């Protein structure tokens, strides 16, 4: 199933590496990725695809120290951390 995610991360390239690694490792394919810098933060919009439930990814992303917020677009589900 495809899901759209909005992720706000620390403005460091390693932060992007870190969360993209989690996307792959937790079994999600990356279909689309957009990244922009606003007010010293990275905002990432991405579409992922997997047979696995999306919470298996969002909860892992939310744990990352560099990740400030994970928002699941189509369900308007937000996890502030």
């Amino acid at each position: 199933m495809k899901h759209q995610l909005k992720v706000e991360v620390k403005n460091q390239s390693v932060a992007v590496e870190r969360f993209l690694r989690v996307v792959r490792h937790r079994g999600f394919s990356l279909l689309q990725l957009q990244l922009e810098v606003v007010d010293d933060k990275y905002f990432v919009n991405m579409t992922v695809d997997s047979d696995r439930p999306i919470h298996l990814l969002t909860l892992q992303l939310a744990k990352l120290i560099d990740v400030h917020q994970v928002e699941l677009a189509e369900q308007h589900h937000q996890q502030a951390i």
Partner: protein
Amino acid sequence: MTGAELLIELLAKHGVKDVFGYPGGAIMPIYDALYGAPVKHYLTRHEQAAGFSAIGYTRSTGKLGVCFATSGPGATNLVTAIADAMMDSIPLLAITGQVPTAAIGSDAFQEVDVLGISLAITKHSYLVERAEDLAEILQEAIHVATSGRPGPVLVDIPKDIQLAQVSFKPWLAADDYQPEVNLNEVAKANELLKEAKMPVAYVGGGVHAADAQKKLMAFLNETSMPAVSTLKALGSVLPDYEYDLGMLGMHGGQAANLAVQKCDLLVCIGARFDDRVTGNLSKFASNAKIIHLDIDAAEVGKRKPAEASLIADLHDSLPLLAHPQTDGSWLTHMKSMMVKHAWRYDYPGEKVFAPYLLNKLSQTMPSNGVVCCDVGQHQMWVAQHMKFNSPRNHLSSGGAGTMGFGLPAAIGVQVARPDDFVITVSGDGSIMMNIQELATIRRNNLPVKILVIDNQRLGMVRQWQQMFFEERYSETILSDNPDFVALAAVFGIKGQTITKASEVDDAIQALVDSKGPYILHACIDEQENVWPLVPPGAANDQMVTEVK
């Protein structure tokens, strides 16, 4: 002060008295700052061992474990130990030297992208790019390693930043995201507890991480709920608890596995439904509703959905659980299962029987002694046949299952707890993985005890080859092992070899009574297997107890 001096001063400020490591070119300023410093450095003979010693240090005390390595191969040698700490949620701080900032990315001598390597094996990691950030990064690193669900943190410090003039800046942790217990979930959990006729507590390593043994025992003593433990939880349930069923899972006890398979409520306390615990997940505790207590929201529903989840520190969540008394008929059934499936030590042969040997060690060694295991058959025998009164006294590489863990971990424990009895229980395969650490024992005159259970095989792999690979013993025969007692003697360590059951009692007593380091080399039957075993893909009530 220099960046290197700041590191050492900051560690001292955080109460770090001992660190483990190995010097090299890119970390020389830090080793220079260590010279005469109040932080004592223990030189191991391989960086991996420095990592495991730091893990032993923290797991046996709750204090932060710290290890140092230089750039390139020094840092890559740390990788296995850091990954081990990640899998077992251990607060480890790894400091690596890096080539100077200007040389990063130039393929300089001993340059490796350590930050890149660290991404998959740390809770978090840093490359210090500016000297003025060093103090803040180090303080944040310690905070991240030790807060929430603990884990390893790596800080990679270029040599020029170690040499740069810096000033100390106090760093205050931002208000951490602390999950608050959801009271609706508490109400649901307590309703489930009151309805349950056949509950079981499934205790995991989270109890150790949260230092919540007292609160666990308060809950168990109030409810009399039967308890099963994961490998990492062993010692959390006190050995005199009437309904302690021991370890569950692939090599768990029959009473433990059967209780979980039959129960109608499973109270998961700081565990994560690991595949070695559950066997066939779809058939695991399939009659049970589940209450899951964990500090990490990502563990709830990861492998098994829960009817009620309390996502918080166990100190906060455990006292919120209701304490209904467990149904008497269920407890009577548990008692009968414990008697029916009790371990037997009346082995008929003349050879050393490892379960008896370990049970004897358990009875003979001081009650606050620490056992550091390696990985394989001996590890499972320790879990089955020894008793521990604290999870700090049983250290085993759980998630990663790293051979070579035991000896350096025991060194770290002995440094942290110099007056306690510390022993590594190893196999003839595992002991060779970090055998160079005998030199660290000698260098520091540490009274670490070593028990090598020798079947001249990589025993666990051999057992699987026997059971599942048509007895094709590919690369598991170690009949060319060295003479372990002679090898230890080269490092000034005394010991003896035993081959007969009749020698076990005296040999264990001699081991326990020895004042300095000591090795007991126990030769067992090469065909001995670990029972019971849940075959891959099977449910936990389909335990095998012999080769068919």
